[in-house]
C-alpha cells in the first residue's frame, strides 16, 4: 500500500527535507479543489474511510465547537511513492481564491515549491486562476497541470489540455487527468507531486527563519499561526520573535495538521505546521512576516513582507443609532482575525455615528459586512465604496483622501487615482460587449490573446474607482455570467476628478458625496437628484435637491411641499383607530433621519446608496 500508517511515517521535526514536498492547489471556485482534497485525505489514509465526509477540510471549522478551529491551511500527508517506494511527507497548503487576497495568495505560494493547477475540463481556466497561476510562475513554482472532472459527460479534456499547455509552455499530454469524484488518477497525481516538485532546501544549522503564510484567531487558543520553516528549526518553549515588529513571544505549542492538530517537538527545515503563542490578535502575527528565534535571531527576514494596504473604503453605519457600541465591539472582534481590516470612527450628519472602514477589495468588504450583520445581528447602511485618492491642493500640499468628505474645498492642483491592470477571460463572442464596457469605464486596452479557438484573455488598465462601482455585476450580466475578472493595482494616475455634493434644502448630505470623473459628474448628479426626489416623501415645505461641484449647481430637482395630510372623517368609532394609527406613525418616525429640517426615511438612504441595478444578492436581502 502506498499509504503509510501515521505512527510509522516520518515524524515532524525529524523529517529529512529531501522527503518533503510542499504544494498548493490553484483552482477556481467550483472546479473541484475540495473534492480532490477529500480523495487525497482518503488515499493517504490520514482520514479513516469510516470518518470520511464530503469537503472534509472545509467543514471542520463549522462542526468543531471546541479546540482549534482549523481551516484547511496546511495538511500533512504521508505517502509512499509508487515510483521509488520511498516514504515522503506531502504538505498541502491552501490558497485563498480571490483577487482581493492576492497578497495572502502570494505568501501561501511562497511556502511551496510546486502547485497543482486544477482546471475543470468542462469549463476551462478562469481569470482568477490565471492570475494565481502567473503568481505561482513568478514564484518559480513547479506547475503540475491537472484536468479535473474527467468523468463528466461535458468534459473536453483535449480542448483544455491545449489551453493549459499553451499557458504553461508544456505539451498537452503532460496534463494529468483526474476525477476528484471517483478518485481516478489521484494516486498518479500524488506520485507525480513527489517526482516533479523539488524538495525544500534550507540550512538546518542557520538561525531559525519561518514564513507565516496564514494566521487565524481561535477563541479558545488565541492566534494559531501557520508557518513554513525555511532555515533552522522551531521547538516548543522557544522564545520566538516576529522580525517585522521585533515583538517576542513564548511558543506554547508547535505541531502539524494531519488533518487534526497534532502537537510535535518542533518543526525542521522545509516543514509546515502551526504555532500557538497565546497572542490574541492576528496583527501581532502577520501573514508574510518571518518568525525567528529570539535568543539566536536571523539577521535577514524573508523577502516579500508587506503591510496590508486597504484599497477600498466605505462607511458602515448601524441602522439603529443605539447599535453603535455593538458595531464597535463586532469590528474589534473581527479585526482579531483579519489583519487587513482597518477602521476608525466616523460621524455623518445624515447617518449618525459609524466607522470608516478600509478593505482589500470589494469581496473583502462584502465578507466583512456580511459577517458583521450575521454574527453580531446588526443591520447596517454602507456608503458608496471609495478608493484612495491623492489630492494636491492649491498650496501644493498632498492629501490622502479615502472619504469624499475629506476632499479639499477650493483650488485643486491635481487628483491621482489608483489604476489597476484587469484581466478578463471570456468566450470570444463577448469581445465587443466587454470592450464597450471597459471603454465606458475609462479603460485602456493593453492587449488580447486567444487561449483557445473561442476563448480570449482581454487586458485593460482601468481606474479602480470604475471597478468598485458596479463593474463586476455589469460584466457578468452583459456576458451571461461567462466572463471572469481579475485585477491588480499597478499605481496611480492623474485624472480629471471632481467631488459632487448632493444638497437637500441647501444642506450637504455627506453620505451622498462622491468623487467622480468630470465627464460623469452630471450623470451622477442627475441620477442622485432624481432618485432622491422619488425616495424622499413630501415635507410641509418645498425641498430643493441639488447636485453641485463646489459652488456650481449642476442638477436640480424639487420635492413640492405636501398640502394634504389629514383624514377628513372623525366619528366616535374613528377615535381609537386614529390614535392607534398615530402611535404606529410615531414608531415610523423613529426610523427617519433629519437632514437639516428635512425628514429622510432610512429606506431612502439605503435605496439611494445602492447602485442602479441591484445585484441578486441585494434583492434576496430585502426579502
Amino acid at each position, binding site marked *: 500500500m502506498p499509504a503509510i500508517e501515521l505512527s510509522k511515517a516520518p515524524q515532524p521535526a525529524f523529517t529529512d527535507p529531501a522527503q518533503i514536498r510542499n504544494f498548493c492547489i490553484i483552482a477556481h471556485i467550483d472546479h473541484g479543489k475540495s473534492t480532490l482534497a477529500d480523495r487525497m485525505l482518503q488515499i493517504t489514509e490520514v482520514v479513516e474511510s469510516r470518518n470520511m465526509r464530503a469537503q472534509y477540510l472545509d467543514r471542520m471549522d463549522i462542526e468543531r465547537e471546541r479546540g482549534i478551529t482549523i481551516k484547511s491551511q496546511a495538511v500533512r500527508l504521508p505517502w509512499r511513492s509508487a515510483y521509488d517506494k520511498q516514504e515522503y511527507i506531502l504538505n498541502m497548503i491552501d490558497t485563498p481564491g480571490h483577487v482581493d487576497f492576492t497578497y495572502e495568495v502570494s505568501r501561501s505560494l511562497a511556502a511551496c515549491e510546486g502547485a497543482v493547477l486544477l482546471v475543470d475540463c468542462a469549463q476551462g481556466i478562469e481569470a482568477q486562476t490565471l492570475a494565481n497561476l502567473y503568481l505561482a510562475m513568478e514564484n518559480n513554482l513547479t506547475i503540475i497541470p491537472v484536468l479535473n472532472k474527467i468523468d463528466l459527460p461535458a468534459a473536453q479534456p483535449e480542448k483544455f489540455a491545449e489551453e493549459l499547455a499553451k499557458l504553461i509552455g508544456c505539451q498537452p499530454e503532460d496534463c494529468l487527468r483526474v476525477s476528484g469524484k471517483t478518485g481516478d488518477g489521484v494516486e498518479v497525481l500524488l506520485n507525480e507531486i513527489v517526482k516533479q516538485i523539488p524538495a525544500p532546501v534550507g540550512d538546518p544549522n542557520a538561525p531559525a527563519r519561518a514564513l507565516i503564510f496564514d494566521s487565524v484567531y481561535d477563541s479558545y487558543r488565541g492566534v494559531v499561526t501557520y508557518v513554513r520553516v525555511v532555515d533552522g528549526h522551531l521547538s516548543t518553549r522557544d522564545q520566538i520573535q516576529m522580525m517585522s515588529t521585533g515583538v517576542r513571544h513564548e511558543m506554547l505549542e508547535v505541531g502539524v495538521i494531519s488533518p487534526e492538530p497534532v502537537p510535535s517537538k518542533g518543526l525542521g527545515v522545509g516543514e509546515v505546521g502551526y504555532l500557538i503563542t497565546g497572542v490574541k490578535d492576528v496583527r501581532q502575527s502577520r501573514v508574510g512576516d518571518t518568525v525567528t528565534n529570539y535568543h539566536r535571531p536571523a539577521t535577514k527576514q524573508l523577502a516579500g513582507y508587506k503591510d496590508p494596504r486597504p484599497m477600498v473604503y466605505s462607511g458602515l453605519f448601524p441602522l439603529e443609532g443605539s447599535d453603535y457600541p455593538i458595531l464597535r465591539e463586532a469590528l474589534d472582534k473581527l479585526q482579531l482575525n483579519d489583519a487587513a481590516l482597518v477602521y476608525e470612527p466616523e460621524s455623518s450628519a445624515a447617518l449618525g455615528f459609524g466607522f470608516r472602514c478600509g478593505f482589500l477589495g470589494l469581496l473583502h468588504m462584502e465578507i466583512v459586512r456580511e459577517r458583521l450583520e450575521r454574527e453580531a445581528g446588526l443591520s447596517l447602511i454602507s456608503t458608496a465604496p471609495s478608493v484612495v485618492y491623492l489630492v494636491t491642493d492649491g498650496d501644493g500640499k498632498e492629501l490622502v483622501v479615502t472619504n469624499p468628505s475629506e476632499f479639499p474645498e477650493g483650488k485643486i492642483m491635481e487628483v491621482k487615482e489608483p489604476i489597476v491592470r484587469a484581466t478578463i477571460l471570456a468566450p470570444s463572442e463577448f469581445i465587443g460587449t466587454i470592450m464597450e464596457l471597459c471603454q465606458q469605464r475609462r479603460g485602456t486596452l493593453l492587449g488580447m490573446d486567444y487561449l483557445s479557438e473561442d476563448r480570449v484573455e482581454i487586458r485593460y488598465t482601468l481606474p479602480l474607482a470604475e471597478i468598485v462601482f458596479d463593474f463586476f455585476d455589469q460584466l457578468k450580466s452583459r456576458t451571461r455570467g461567462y466572463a471572469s475578472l481579475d485585477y491588480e493595482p499597478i499605481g496611480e494616475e492623474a485624472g480629471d476628478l471632481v467631488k459632487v455634493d448632493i444638497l437637500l434644502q441647501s444642506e450637504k448630505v455627506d453620505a451622498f458625496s462622491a468623487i467622480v470623473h468630470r465627464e460623469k459628474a452630471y450623470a451622477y448628479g442627475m441620477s442622485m437628484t432624481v432618485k432622491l426626489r422619488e425616495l424622499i416623501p413630501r415635507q*410641509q*415645505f418645498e425641498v430643493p435637491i441639488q447636485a453641485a461641484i463646489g459652488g456650481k449647481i449642476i442638477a436640480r430637482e424639487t420635492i*413640492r411641499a*405636501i*398640502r*394634504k*395630510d*389629514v*383624514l*377628513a*372623517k*372623525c*366619528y*366616535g*368609532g374613528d*377615535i*381609537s383607530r*386614529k*390614535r392607534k394609527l*398615530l*402611535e404606529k*406613525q*410615531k414608531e415610523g*418616525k423613529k426610523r427617519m433621519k433629519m437632514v437639516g*429640517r428635512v425628514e429622510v426615511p432610512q429606506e431612502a438612504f439605503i435605496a439611494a446608496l445602492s447602485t442602479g441595478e441591484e445585484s441578486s444578492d441585494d434583492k434576496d436581502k430585502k426579502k
Partner: protein
Amino acid sequence: MSARADRLAFYIHIPYCVKRCGYCDFNTYTPAELQIQSSLETISHDYIDLVLKEIERAAAQSVATFVPSIFFGGGTPTLMAPADLARVIESIQSHFTLTDDCEITIEANPDTVNPEMLLQLLQAGFNRISLGMQSAVPHVLEVLDRTHNPANVEKAVLAARAAGFNEVSVDLIYGTPGESMQDWERSIDAALALPITHISAYALIVEEGTKLASRVKRSEIIIPDDDETADKYILADNRFRDAGMDWYELSNWSKPGSECKHNLYYWCGENWWGAGPGAHSHMDGRRWWNVKHPGAYKEKILSIGDPTQDSENLSDVEREEERLLLNIRLPGGIAKSSLTAQQLEKLSPFLEGGHVSKENWGGGKVTLTQTGRLLADRIVRDALA
C-alpha cells in the same frame, strides 16, 4: 379631557341598507346579505326591541341624569318605521331627562324620505335631519355607486323644511375619481342653494375591502392626487364661509348656532353610549365597542344582555393624545398653556409656514389656519404627539 358625568349622549346604529354603496365600509348589511326574508316592518320591530334592551343596560350602568343628544346613524335609519324610532326616544326619555335643547338627529337617504314620514319623525321628537347628498353630479354619484337621483336632494331638503325641521344638514364627498374642479364647484353651489344650516364635507377615503377599492386596484379608476383634493377643500371652505357657514370642525361647517352637538360631544371627549351592532361607546376614559354582526349582536343581547366585543381603558398618555388629535381639529384649538416647551418649539416651523395661526398664537392658542387644517394629522404627529 374630562367628561361631564351627569350627561350621556346616545348614538343609535341602524345596520341596514337596501343596497351597499361602493365606497362605504360602514357596519351595515342588506337584507340579501343577511338572508332575511321577512318584511322590513318585522326587521324594524325586532331590531328596535334589541336596542331597547341595550338602552336599559346603559341606564343601569350610567350615573348620568341628562341626555343632550341622540343621533340615529347607519346604515339607513329611515328604513326603520318612525314608530320604532319613536320607541327608542321614549325609552331614553323614560330613563333619563332630555335636556331642553336636546338634539335628536336622523341620517336619511334623500330617496327614502317623504312628507308623511318627516311629520312622523318630528312627532317622534326628531329636530335635526342629515341628508346624504354626496354630490350633485351624476357621473360622480355613479362612481360612488349611489342610487339617489340628485334632484331628490332638493326635494328632500325642501320637504324637511316644510315639515318643520329647522336644522337640516347635507353630507358631501369630494375627491371622487373622475370629479373635476368644476364638478365639485357644481356640488358646492347646489348645496348652498338649499335652505340648509349645516354641511359636512369629507374627502373620499378609499377603504380596504370596498367595491371602490377593488376598482382602484384594478386601475379602472384613478384616485385624484392630494394636491387637487387640497384645492377642493380650500374652494369649499371659502365658499361655505362666504355663504355664512363657518368651520367648527375641519370637515364640518354650519350657520352660527347650528353646529352638530352630537359630533362636538365626540370631539370634546364627553360620554356617549353607542347602541347597536359595532357601535362604539366612551365613558370616562374607557372605550368599548359591540360585536359587529347583527346576528351576533342579537345573540349576545338575548343571551347575556351584553353585546360588547372588546374594550380599552385609556392611559393618561392616551387620553392626552386623544385630546390633542381631536381638539386640533376644532377652531378653538389647544391652549398653549397645556403644552410643553418642547411641543411649542416643534410647532414653530408650522407657525412660520403659515399652518398655525399667528394671531391666535399671540392670544395663547394653537389653532390651525386653512392650509394648516389640511396638515392636521402631520402637525399632531410631528409636534404634539
